[in-house]
């Protein structure tokens, strides 16, 4: 029974995708509840899988009954079950919020929109669960194609942003496919566990194909993950996409690519190979550090909330890259914990940006003042919690992932990188406290325009569908921070691969 669970999540999403398309015929308003049901069901399945994995160990699902090196398999181990749970729970909350936002921003396009959202989630869950490299490529492209569509329904200019993302993303996926060709040439297999067994028997110096394959695949995934010099597609896409899409793609899209990088480097090639024989991790460490500084500095320069959050995403992905590149258990814990924390923080921040756009009609930082606090006290409280967590103040969640990253950097004696982590926390404080200061301290300036808008949009807190997800995420940050020792010991410690 439980062995069939891994296939259940893609089946749920694929079926719902088709059914939602049918609602176009009669009942448009069913689209949103159906999408939400699918996400909640998948969260339940993911939770069950995580429980089972922690309790009884990892399990496999063989497609068509073909055993692994020949057939495709889905693997549920502590890492994949954990990431699948994060994706589905965060998505469920974002989908609750999207109901009212989409009514305003998308109008009648909601039916195809939710259909494409299901495809996007199908792709992400498939990436996380699959144990086969080529299957991963196909799911990568499914989720990417869906995200181009989700971005392109936004405001004027979003089509161009989506097009540039498409060009970059497809080049990235093609690099991945090219690297996979080299890997397949030398190992003759596509199954991750099988390749992991073959690689130690190859003589590294005599097989340049192994090096080329590794480098090309890492470059391809880094484009999807938006590691610093390859991040060009990210800011425009996140800014111009509709609020619901950016709060859906920003927290989980790049995180799943980081998952692929972790899976590839540590579970297939092995930490020893990528940090000593081929210095992939050194390059990754310095690029991530550059990305952290670059993203934070540019975030300070932005005047629009969503664009600022997009640049902050570039910086945050840098933290995950940094944790991966340390190639030691502490860095691994830091990276995985940051995948969870950043998914919760970023979704909370983007949801607040969506709420502001709907209630205030804009998300322009220079026009923020303390009337926001009066009108939206709870939303702004959740925003502040997420912002403080991004800066990394205890006891909120963001502190602990940065703490593990700092410990990992100290263990490898990389003092420059430690300075980067500390400096970036200061930069984060600079751009988040700027907003908090405006919202809580600054008295309203010219009231006339604001009041006119208020009449049009209505005042006060938004309805429960928009307020609840934000509050849950804000509270979750506090809980994740307080119980981080439990999360690390119960869930993350069993993930650490052997020989790391």
């Amino acid at each position, binding site marked *: 029974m439980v062995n069939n669970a891994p296939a259940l999540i893609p089946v749920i999403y694929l079926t719902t995708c088709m059914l939602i398309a049918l609602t176009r015929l009669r009942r448009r308003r069913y689209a949103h509840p159906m999408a939400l049901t699918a996400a909640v069901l998948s969260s339940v399945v993911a939770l069950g899988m995580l429980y089972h994995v922690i309790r009884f160990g990892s399990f496999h699902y063989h497609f068509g009954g073909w055993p692994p090196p020949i057939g495709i398999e889905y693997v549920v181990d502590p890492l994949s079950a954990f990431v699948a749970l994060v994706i589905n729970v965060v998505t469920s909350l974002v989908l609750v919020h999207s109901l009212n936002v989409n009514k305003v921003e998308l109008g009648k396009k909601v039916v195809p929109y939710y259909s494409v959202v299901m495809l996007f989630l199908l792709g992400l869950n498939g990436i996380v669960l699959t144990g086969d490299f080529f299957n991963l490529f196909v799911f990568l492209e499914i989720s990417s194609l869906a995200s*181009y569509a989700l971005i392109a329904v936004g405001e004027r*200019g979003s*089509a*161009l942003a989506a097009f540039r993302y498409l*060009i970059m993303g*497809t*080049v990235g996926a093609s690099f991945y496919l090219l690297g996979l060709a080299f890997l*397949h040439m030398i190992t003759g297999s596509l199954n991750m566990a099988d390749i992991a067994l073959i690689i130690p028997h190859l003589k590294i110096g005599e097989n340049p194909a192994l090096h080329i394959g590794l480098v090309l695949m890492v470059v391809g995934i880094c484009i999807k993950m938006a590691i610093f010099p390859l991040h060009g597609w990210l800011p425009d896409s996140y800014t111009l996409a509709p609020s619901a899409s950016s709060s859906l793609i920003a927290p989980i899209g790049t995180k799943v690519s980081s998952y692929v990088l972790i899976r590839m480097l540590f579970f297939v090639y092995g930490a020893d190979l990528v940090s000593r024989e081929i210095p992939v991790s050194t390059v990754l460490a310095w690029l991530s550090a550059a990305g952290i500084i670059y993203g934070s500095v540019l975030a300070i320069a932005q005047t629009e909330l969503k664009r600022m959050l997009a640049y902050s995403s570039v910086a945050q992905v840098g933290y995950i890259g940094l944790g991966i590149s340390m190639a030691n258990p502490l860095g691994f814990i830091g990276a995985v914990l940051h995948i969870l924390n950043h998914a919760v923080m970023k979704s909370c921040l983007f949801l607040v940006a969506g709420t502001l756009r709907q209630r205030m009609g804009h998300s322009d930082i220079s026009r923020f003042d303390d009337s926001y606090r009066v009108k939206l006290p709870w939303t702004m409280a959740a925003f502040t919690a997420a912002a403080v967590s991004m800066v990394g103040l205890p006891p909120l969640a963001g502190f602990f992932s940065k703490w593990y990253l700092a410990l990992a950097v100290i263990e490898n004696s990389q003092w420059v990188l430690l300075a980067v982590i500390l400096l970036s926390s200061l930069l984060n404080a600079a751009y988040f406290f700027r907003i908090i200061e405006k919202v809580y301290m600054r008295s309203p300036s010219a009231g006339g325009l604001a009041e006119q808008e208020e009449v049009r949009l209505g005042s006060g807190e938004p309805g429960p569908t928009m307020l609840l997800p934000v509050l849950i995420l804000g509270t979750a940050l506090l809980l994740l921070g307080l119980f981080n020792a439990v999360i690390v010991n119960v869930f993350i410690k069993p993930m650490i691969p052997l020989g790391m």
Partner: protein
Amino acid sequence: MEFFLGHYAYWFIITLLCIGLYTVLFKRNLLKQVIGLSIFQSSIILFWVACAVKWNATVPIYDHAYPVEQTSLYINPLPHTLMLTAIVVGVATLGVAFALLIIIYKNYKTLDEVELIEEMKKW
């Protein structure tokens, strides 16, 4: 010389790959970028197929003259089937790219990247 002639298929594929990547990176017209992307993807598909070449072997359909145990007599069909999937993925990408180009052209009446960035700045 032997090195070049012996690997002529790979040299052809590398040339295609470079043409595709150059077009994607340096052409101003968005439609030409899509064409470059398509060339780039095709070269990778050709690379997979070229990898699967095996001399003195036959199609992977069971033949009594060739015993099953001697796998070296049969071609490995896996790369070809994988590339069928990759071609489908490529077609889907092209479809989405053209749909986006149509929207862009309707909004701005141009597909020139430099002009489009100028238009974007006005907003």
